[in-house]
């Protein structure tokens, strides 16, 4: 009969435990989620509204949509590139919903950060909206490239560690 401590140990460190499933991609996604929570908490601390109802929720929803807009556009662009490659009879693997989810997560994380920076610097509404929109697209374009490079580096490191 397993004890509670054994269960926790198995959950975290076992063969199929939590840390075994922590791929670099999952770590990157968790980073963006945590950074979003931290930045939104920072904005909350700075603005300190008396009630949630006083927040401009409609504008916040449109701001989220602005940020995600760039992510969806980037997914569509990559889907088109994949279909062009497939048209030339080359093997291509592109899972639309998987890639869309990834771009939405990246765009939302960058959008949170940009919103936090804009609130901190007291940007005007035009500048803040433009930054949200541009960061959604350029962030998925640039940061996803950096993330891929980092993941391939980690995978190379993991492969070399295994060989040793």
């Amino acid at each position, binding site marked *: 009969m397993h004890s509670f401590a054994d269960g926790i140990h198995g959950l975290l460190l076992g063969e199929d435990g939590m840390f075994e499933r922590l791929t670099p991609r999952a770590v990157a996604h968790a980073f963006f989620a945590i950074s979003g929570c931290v930045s939104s908490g920072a904005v909350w601390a700075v603005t300190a509204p008396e009630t949630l109802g006083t927040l401009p929720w*409609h504008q916040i929803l449109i701001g989220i949509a602005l940020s995600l807009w760039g992510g969806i556009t980037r997914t569509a662009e990559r889907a088109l590139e994949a279909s*062009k490659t497939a048209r030339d009879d080359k093997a291509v693997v592109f899972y639309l919903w998987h890639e869309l989810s990834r771009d939405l997560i990246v765009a939302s994380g960058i959008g949170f950060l940009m919103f936090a920076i804009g609130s901190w610097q007291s940007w005007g509404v035009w500048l803040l909206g433009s930054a949200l929109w541009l960061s959604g697209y350029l962030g998925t374009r640039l940061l996803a490239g950096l993330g891929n490079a980092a993941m391939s580096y980690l995978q190379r490191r993991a492969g070399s560690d295994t060989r040793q």
Partner: protein
Amino acid sequence: MIPPAARPQTDRRQQVHRLLRFDLLVRWAILSTSTVTCLLAWFVPQSLTAVLLHNGGSVSDVVMLALTASVFIGYIDFIVNDILPDQFVFKIKCLKENRHLGYSLIGGMYMLQTFVSISATIGPEDFLPLGYVMNAFVCGWYSWTTAWRGWHV
């Protein structure tokens, strides 16, 4: 009673006219509404659109110029790649292949105008941003679905 004979498959009435393609109609609708937005912004200073776009400083000026340029390029694409006959050799391929980005840009600028103009409480003054967000929705719908399917390249 004998039903009327079906028209043969070779009958031209069975085929969709090249000017009746759905994407052509959707693009025409988007360009039409965007043209009205641009004309209001440039030539009717008392309109809500012009007030919105002239009171935002340099950022809103850039948005107005970018929206006008996108609509202008959209019309060039519309005329050269779709309206002119197919045997016309002068086609602009790069405009056709990047069409989805242009319409996503137009939709994004409509969303940006919505973000700026929407108020904290919903009321009659929000009909303008409602129109903006509906235009943006159509732009995104067209842009993303055509790019995902990839049939226009």
